């Protein structure tokens, strides 16, 4: 906006100030207040806040600025040389099997959209139950988080993935053995290289007991695992986890997108059954804003290098790839899969489906100094929707049955949308989508996703000199 206004002014033919006169004498035009693009109102407010408090901004949710994303890709659909499948009549498969490499008991999901790890502590017990109900209704998995396994989620999740995090809060043998898969968390897209945070407001007696911490403290969990460092150790850690669970359970390794080629290759080398790759858009319960917005790669740029590593090691489709970070629609699901992922995971979108940021709580969002759609103070535990809180009265607002139903509906829509696209591309299974089905709207997206710029055969960095 600002720049366009500049252009117009500079093209004025009359040089010098414009003088206007009327009966009252000369009128000097006023310069309009103009916000800086560099020091925009948000930036200024943040400087003022930092100066007043001396502490960085902590918030939940993922990156808020615009990044190259799946929106920058399009599917081509069918044409003379490709014919489509009939909607509703011709089958388009959606199931995915995870853990086929080493696990004695791989898991089969009916849809390739899983619920990402979100801790009890960050989320209320009712929210965890609702996630379990919704996911199980459509045949997919949920994941524990930094804080251990609760009865709510084990009881209501048909397939539950147990996270092994640096903090090891609540980690115990019984829960490890009653999980359906194990996820070793190396990093998270919102904060690759960062540890967890749970502020005092959310360290309720139950959370404190589960984590073995004093109530009400600002809990910082570590960013490195306590008993292993580097890929060679990871291999031995994975061996131990397999020995502890009779080689039954698929073992995932989750990394934040930063060096996806090497991280994927090293996870494969360390013996992972599944690699989980979380882009920088990925949500968090509480992280420094500066971390969320400035560290890591957008998921769009991370999938192809990870798939390349899988292919280079002959493991594509043998070691499964789950990607996450800003997945919202069936189009996003289809695009991630066309780029080579076996499945996706959702965090933020699942919370929204449960009822997070719903307009019905607008009055209360206003009282918290925000508005429905922008609420991200998930770390404060005052969530009007009762999802990111440990306050019993707030948590009771979320009906886990109804919220679970909303999540199941949403997951079904994601699947139907992805199938609609896959059929249009003539694919009888979502896994048959491929990069060839895609083009990019921008040169950046073309380079990152390694698909041609729309209307050309140009993939930046590829087919040079042709």
């Amino acid at each position, binding site marked *: 906006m600002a720049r366009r206004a500049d252009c117009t002014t500079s093209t004025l033919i009359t040089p010098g100030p414009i003088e206007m006169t009327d009966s009252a004498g000369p009128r000097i035009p006023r310069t309009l207040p103009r916000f800086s693009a560099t020091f925009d109102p948000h930036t200024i407010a943040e400087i003022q806040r930092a100066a007043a408090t001396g502490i960085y901004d902590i918030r939940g949710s993922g990156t808020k600025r615009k990044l190259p994303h799946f929106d920058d890709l399009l599917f081509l659909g069918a044409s003379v040389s490709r014919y489509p499948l009939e909607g509703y009549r011709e089958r388009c498969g959606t199931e995915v099997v995870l853990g086929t490499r080493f696990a004695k008991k791989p898991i089969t999901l009916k849809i390739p959209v899983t619920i990402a790890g979100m801790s009890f502590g960050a989320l209320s017990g009712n929210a965890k139950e609702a996630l379990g109900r919704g996911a199980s209704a459509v045949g997919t998995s949920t994941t524990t988080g930094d804080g251990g396994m609760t009865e709510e989620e084990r009881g209501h999740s048909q397939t539950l993935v147990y996270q092994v995090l640096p903090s090891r809060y609540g980690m115990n043998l019984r829960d490890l053995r009653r999980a359906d898969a194990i996820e070793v968390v190396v990093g998270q897209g919102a904060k690759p290289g960062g540890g967890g945070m749970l502020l005092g407001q959310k360290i309720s007696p139950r959370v404190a007991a589960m984590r*073995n911490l004093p109530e009400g403290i600002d809990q910082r969990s570590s960013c490195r695992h306590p008993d292993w460092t580097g890929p060679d150790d990871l291999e031995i850690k994975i061996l*131990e986890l397999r020995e502890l669970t009779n080689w039954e359970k698929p073992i995932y390794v989750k990394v934040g997108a930063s060096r996806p080629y090497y991280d994927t290759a090293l996870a494969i080398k360390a013996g992972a059954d599944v690699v989980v790759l979380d882009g920088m858009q990925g949500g968090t319960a509480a992280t420094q804003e500066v971390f969320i917005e400035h560290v890591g790669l957008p998921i769009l740029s991370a999938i192809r290098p990870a798939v390349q590593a899988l292919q280079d090691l002959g493991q594509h489709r043998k070691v499964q790839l789950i990607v996450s970070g800003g997945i919202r629609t069936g189009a996003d699901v289809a695009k991630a899969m066309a780029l080579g992922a076996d499945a996706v995971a959702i965090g933020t979108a699942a919370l929204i489906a449960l009822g997070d940021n719903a307009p019905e709580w607008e009055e209360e969002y206003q009282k918290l100094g925000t508005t429905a759609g922008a609420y991200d103070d998930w770390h404060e535990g005052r969530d009007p929707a009762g999802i990111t809180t440990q306050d019993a009265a707030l948590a009771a607002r979320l009906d886990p049955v109804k919220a679970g139903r909303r999540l199941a509906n949403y997951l079904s829509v994601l699947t139907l949308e992805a199938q609609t696209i896959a059929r249009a591309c003539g694919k009888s299974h979502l896994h048959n989508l491929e990069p060839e089905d895609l083009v990019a709207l921008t040169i950046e997206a073309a380079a990152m996703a390694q698909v041609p710029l729309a209307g050309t055969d140009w993939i930046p960095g590829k087919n040079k000199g042709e």
Partner: protein
Amino acid sequence: MSTAVKLSDSTPVVFDLANASLRELNVALQGLDGLGQSAWSILNPRGAHALAVGITAAVSLSIEGHVGYYCAGMNDGASITITGNAGPGVAENMMSGLVHVLGDASQAAGATAHGGLLIIEGNASGRCGISMKGIDIVVKGSVGHMSAFMAQSGNFVILGDAGEALGDCLYEARIFVRGEVASLGADCEEKAMTEEDRIILRNLLKKSGAKAEPAEFKRYGSARRLYHFHVDNAGAY
């Protein structure tokens, strides 16, 4: 089990890792219910990783030699003696039981463990007792740097010296040191020894067969200054 030879009721089951795999051993041990077959002797461990992990029966095991990473990991009830040295993460995340290392232990001994007792006759390397969550640890020699880092609860007794940054970012674990402390980590401070401390310490010294008196020890704990974010503490992070 062809490789596990039980000689008589009073003699232990002998399992020779020279003739059988780690998998076979762990399957056998994890399948025990604590009734019968209560004493095992494991021969030729040869530094293998993930030995005797996840046992839930109250059996006693003697591993005759050196072990690799994560020996007795997540142990829940067994009494395990390692006659040699132990690699990283011995007794990591132990739930209950006893792990007794007759030699030295590598890094992260007793990491994140919730319960039970870990006794190390020799020295332990860095990060001993890291993120401990209720375990009792007695090291008769010295411990390396960053021991008891973020230790949450439980009791940690060091008869020798402690390396740099002992008890960094400590929560509610109690640390007792008889020798020198190279330096204390952020938010770890010396505390007065209370009667409760003395009882805990005396009990642990007795259980581990250590010849020392509580009066010879200093007690360290959390200053609790980092429990809440505050700009004035930024320098401590």
